[in-house]
């Protein structure tokens, strides 16, 4: 698609934000907040984490100074975009008593129009997986579908791998081939700071057409491809192959008990995982008992209520709950949705307060098998 490729100068990047805002999108991009890079509303490139990198390990994360002017020099933000596409708390409807019965009032907020800028390969893959979860089955989640349809996606490819990344082994990155509107690779070469841009949809092409741009040179294309290779080659972690079959056969592995000694069932891993989708519903009334409301909230398979049926919880032991999480991600998901539920972003490793590493646990199970 040569005509869909072009180079945008750093100083013209603001125009992209402005055009998106003009089209009614709320730009959401990486931003430094409380010592971390998060996805948050931004007004332009000045809000981006300029020259900021990140250092990550199991249970460890710090921001670093890169010493350059890169705007997307970090790896991935703390939490995925699910917080925007499937918010942690959603009011589904309210109801009021009417006569002997009641009336449902649909009063959901209208779906926002987000332009996500700086989306990583793993993030995009996660979104495509959640599309299958929320829209791929016989029933769709209307809210998700609407927010998803409304959004504009600007992917920025990675130039290096974080220490927790293992997308290469999950085939979800660092290359990006589909599902985006615009793809950028950030290139700094001496004094030159540009973005190699490639449209991936009609919307993307239309936007690109309106931006000040130059033709992409061979050198630019090579720089972008070098970055991708570096990001792939730099990955220190990898998921073992055949993990789906392995775990399906290892439901009774002794290793689950071993993880349970370390795992606190705190649920952080499920909260930060960009594909985890579990939710619960709360029905509540006001004091008068005349008004009711239904709210959906993120839930976690690590909670006792999650598997509670009359008489008790199905998964009481920590071992069974960790097993549920890991086997669902890496094995059952494949049967349910045709893909793995893990995109190799490594967030669950980083944000586990005790640094439990899903790739290491998979290896340990293989060893014990």
């Amino acid at each position, binding site marked *: 698609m040569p005509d869909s490729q072009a180079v945008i100068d750093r100083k013209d990047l603001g125009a992209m934000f402005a055009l998106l805002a003009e089209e009614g999108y709320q730009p959401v991009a990486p931003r430094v907040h409380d010592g*971390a890079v998060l996805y948050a509303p931004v007004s332009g490139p000045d809000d981006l984490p300029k020259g900021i990198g990140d250092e990550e390990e199991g249970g460890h994360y710090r921001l670093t100074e890169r010493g350059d002017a890169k705007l997307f020099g970090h790896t991935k933000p703390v939490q995925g975009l699910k917080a925007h596409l499937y918010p*942690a708390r959603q009011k589904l409807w309210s109801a009021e008593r009417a*006569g002997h019965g009641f009336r449902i009032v649909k009063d959901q907020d209208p779906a926002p129009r987000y332009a996500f800028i700086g989306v990583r390969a793993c993030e995009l893959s996660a979104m495509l997986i959640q599309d299958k979860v929320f829209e791929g089955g016989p029933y769709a989640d209307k809210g998700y579908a609407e927010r998803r349809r409304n959004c504009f996606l600007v992917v920025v490819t990675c130039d290096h791998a974080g220490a927790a990344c293992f997308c290469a082994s999950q085939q979800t990155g660092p290359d990006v081939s589909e599902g985006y509107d615009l793809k950028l690779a950030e290139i700094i070469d001496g004094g030159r700071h540009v973005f190699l841009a490639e449209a991936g949809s009609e919307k993307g092409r239309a936007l690109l057409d309106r931006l000040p741009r130059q033709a992409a040179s061979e050198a630019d294309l090579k720089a972008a491809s070098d970055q991708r290779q570096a990001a792939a080659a730099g990955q220190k972690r990898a998921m073992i192959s055949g993990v789906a079959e392995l775990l399906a056969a290892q439901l009774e592995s002794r290793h689950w008990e071993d993880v349970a*000694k370390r795992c606190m069932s705190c649920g952080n891993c499920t909260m930060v995982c960009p594909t985890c989708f579990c939710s619960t519903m709360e029905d509540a009334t006001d*004091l*008068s008992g005349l008004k009711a409301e239904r709210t959906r909230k993120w839930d976690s398979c690590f*909670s*006792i209520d999650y598997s509670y049926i009359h008489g008790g919880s199905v998964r009481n032991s*920590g071992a069974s709950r960790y097993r549920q999480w890991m086997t669902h991600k890496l094995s059952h998901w494949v049967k349910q949705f045709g893909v793995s539920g893990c995109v190799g972003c490594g967030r669950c490793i980083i944000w586990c*307060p005790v640094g439990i590493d899903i790739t290491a646990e998979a290896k340990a199970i293989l060893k014990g098998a």
Partner: protein
Amino acid sequence: MTTRAKPRLGVFKFSSCDGCQLSLLDCELELLAVTDAVEIAYFLEATRKDMKGPFDVVLVEGSITTPHEAELIRQIRKSTKALITIGACATSGGIQALRNFTDVNGFLDIVYARPDYIETLETATPIAEHVAVDFELRGCPINKHQLLEVLNAFLNKRKPNIPHYAECIECKQRGTVCVMVAKGIACLGPVTQAGCGGLCPATHRGCFGCFGPMETPNTGALADRFLGELKQDKGTVQRAFRSFNANAPAFREESLKHD
């Protein structure tokens, strides 16, 4: 439409700081709705009207620290349909349960010149150790929104939407950056029950356990992290588990491991 008779609410206090019952008065925007929905039949902090039971719902704040209190709570239990304990004092013993770890007579000498005037028990214990409790609402202090939710649930005969999972889940739902991972600050969140709204991490400090142990606390794993990566000493780890919910079994046992 069904109209119901106004349920009678009683609010009682034992050893405590008053903060949890004050939470009821702090529901400023909803307070009149509460007084519309229930008849406040006993609430010393708010009314001179002193009506006797029976009650439909009683809220109990505070822990049992004197023989008189131990007797009184039995009477209250007999006079109410539902008994809800509110706050760390009532649900685990509260800060005053620190006495359970030492000899109370030593404490008396430190605070009072004439310890012989004071009548007190060796221990501060939660209400549930004395009488049956229908629902325990955690927190030091309780969260007023949770208090309203529990009252709502009892008045409307439904299950209160009060999660028992870890504070971390609430913290992440709020979108707070984990202080333990990103700043190396010790945080009790992974073993503490959600409910406060994730205040401490959002204020850049570690959770210090106001809401007591979560449903399945793995305190050992967290203590190992504190002692290891976070380089804390044993005393600090012990004190972390020994605060407002020191007497909650999981925290008590963990703190005893770090003598």
